[in-house]
């Protein structure tokens, strides 16, 4: 579903934020991407979602190149940033309509999905309110609903659990699991290592732009906790 091959991304000033990163997210995978602050997680994610151009390497989403056919890649994927700045002057419903219009979702399936996700994320009574009046967590919920409306094959999330209350976090985990059971894939970064350990069947740890370990969670962890492994690897490398 997502193939990253030898990705290199530098910023002006010669800073190599992502240095020869390769990884593969197959259908059904929930892939956890972890690293310390400034390691290159968000940069990698932004390259995958087409927000950043990259210097070398290739990224394929559902077999299509992000460089050659970005529109096709975006049609089958969805992105939720760590700090979802949305259009404050649109109401929740107007924003969801906007996203659904872009993905050309017909009226009835759109209405069904909005109702379904708004109900389970407890936003049904707030659909008519401007997004600017929402808390961070509520905006996160709106962003999640918007991302799921078009049933993406790949969901890319940057710190998805920040700002969510425990109930909402639990529901989101369930939604991600359901999505993968239906053949989709999830690629997300997080600092909440317990969630990554429980939820993800594959993980990769990035440090200073380089992948230091990647693969099946059970193979990597063995008898260690992810936190211990992470601290060991990121301190010793």
């Amino acid at each position, binding site marked *: 579903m997502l193939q990253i091959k030898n990705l290199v991304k530098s910023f002006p000033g010669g800073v190599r934020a992502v240095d020869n990163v390769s990884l593969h997210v197959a259908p059904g995978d929930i892939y956890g991407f972890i690293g310390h602050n400034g390691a290159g997680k968000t940069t990698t994610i932004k390259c995958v979602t087409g927000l950043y151009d990259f210097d070398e390497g290739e990224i394929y989403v559902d077999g299509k190149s992000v460089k050659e056919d970005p529109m096709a890649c*975006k049609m089958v994927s969805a992105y939720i940033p760590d700090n979802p700045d949305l259009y404050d002057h*649109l109401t929740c419903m107007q924003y969801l309509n*906007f996203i659904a219009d872009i993905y050309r979702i017909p009226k009835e399936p759109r209405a069904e999905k909005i109702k379904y996700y708004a109900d389970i994320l407890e936003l049904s009574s707030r659909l008519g309110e401007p997004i600017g009046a929402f808390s961070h967590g509520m905006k996160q919920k709106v962003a999640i609903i918007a991302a799921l409306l078009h049933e993406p094959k790949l969901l890319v999330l940057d710190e998805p659990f920040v700002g969510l209350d425990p109930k909402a976090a639990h529901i989101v985990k369930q939604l991600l699991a359901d999505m993968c059971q239906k053949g989709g894939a999830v690629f997300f970064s997080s600092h909440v290592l317990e969630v990554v350990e429980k939820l993800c069947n594959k993980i990769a740890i990035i440090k200073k732009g380089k992948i230091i370990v990647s693969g099946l969670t059970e193979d990597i962890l063995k008898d260690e906790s992810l936190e211990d492994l992470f601290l060991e690897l990121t301190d010793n490398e």
Partner: protein
Amino acid sequence: MNNFFKLVKVNLLEIFYNSRKKKKAGGGAGQAGTILLFLVLFAFVAFAVFTMAMGMGEAMAAVGLLPMLLLIALSFSTIFVLVLCIYRMPGFLFSFKDFDLLMSMPIKPSVILGSKLFTSYLENLGAAALVSLPFMIVYGIMTGAGIAYYLLMILICLFIPLLPMTVGGLLAFGLAKLATKLKMKNLVMIVGMVLVMGLAFAWSFGAQTLTETEGIMASLGMFNQIGSVLFTSRFFVEALSGPNLLSLLIFIGISLGLFALFILLFGRAFRHINTAMRQITGRRRKGKTAKIEVRSPLGALLHKEIRTYFGSFIYIFNTCVGVVLATLLAIVAVILGPTALSFLADLQMVGPDFAPFILMMIFSFFIACGNICAPSISIEGSRFYILRALPIDPKDVFRAKLLLHVIITLPLMVLDAAVLCAVLQFSLANTLLFIVYVAVFVVFIGTLGLSMNLKFPRLDYKDDMTAVKQSASVFSCIMIGMVLAFLPLLPLFLNWPMTLFSAGMIVLYAGAALLLWQFITHGGVRIFRSLQA
């Protein structure tokens, strides 16, 4: 006081850091171009004002009224800074993005207000100096003043912006205070500022009657009127013409004292008003706004643009000036008849058929002042990622932004143009020429704005005002628009046929708009795809 200087330092570092960041990111050439353009314009305006001051100085010296030059210096600069403040103060004071951070720190709100106003003061000082110094220098030359005069001149100039800033600030606070008590804050702020603009417009028509008699002496009546309102003017003139140290101290004391009093008194209200202005009330509406509405992707983008535009007081106010002024002009013409536009007769040099071309110039100014497209990429700011991450054709984004500009600007401008043509009884040919010119110029300005914003985008602004007013693209568009506005009068000096020239201008602007659209849909798409928020 310590915190005040620290905040001022941070504000100034922010400005310089952003300049250096742009330079490092390869924006050096564009930035250098903007600075050069700005310096050229500054020098041009300074020269024009100086030339005018020399002319007025000679006339006044002939009748022994040279000190009036000093009154004129103060009047012009005060009015100029006041207009700037009315225009910018509400946005400047009530939409800066580090509000939460500053308010959470152990700093008095009055200190925060003072630091913000100080940054604004530096900008207004430049404007005040540009308008007042030429007059004061001419006075010094004509009276053979010594070095002491020029030192006094520089010192007193530092305090000129304070009084108009105090008045502008009071107006901004008054409006904002009213807006916080009502639900539709944006509407209140917009209507309030439009009313203030309308009053200023109406006053200028009244003041015109004082300038209708020929000669500079007739305009002295207007400056005497201003002088009687501007109570510090007596001390200003005495301080420089004497020189009179006591008058100087009184002038500085009044200006500084009122400004300081304003900051102290409104420091508390500043926090409350800012908080209230930032609250977007979440009305539970289960009616229209909770409805499923299906649009095409372009329709969805246009709807988003419209909602964003009408959701930002700063965006509206800083781009509606032209439309408002054109509409006010049309209303005045309808109510008072053609005689209210007697300034057109004053400007006519080649018969009554010249009026359409003067109006073309005026409407070109109005349209250039209201370029909704010029900040339309920058206004996306931190939400830009939404457009980049979604499967949206960048051309649809550009179409939506240009459509917004055309929908807001074109109908009213064309209507105002038609009303003026009817009131002034233009011939059918001139009416058609004028209306088509206005329509084509609106579209051209839109494509120019979009092109400029793609060349000079700024997605890291801290407040709406930076994106809407302080960006290089907005500045460049206004400057280009101002220069182009004079073109309808060019045939007058070159002895070309006006009608043919204007028709040619229409064709050229249409062609230029098409060329710019080509750039937008090709080069612009590449730029859009490379932008990183």
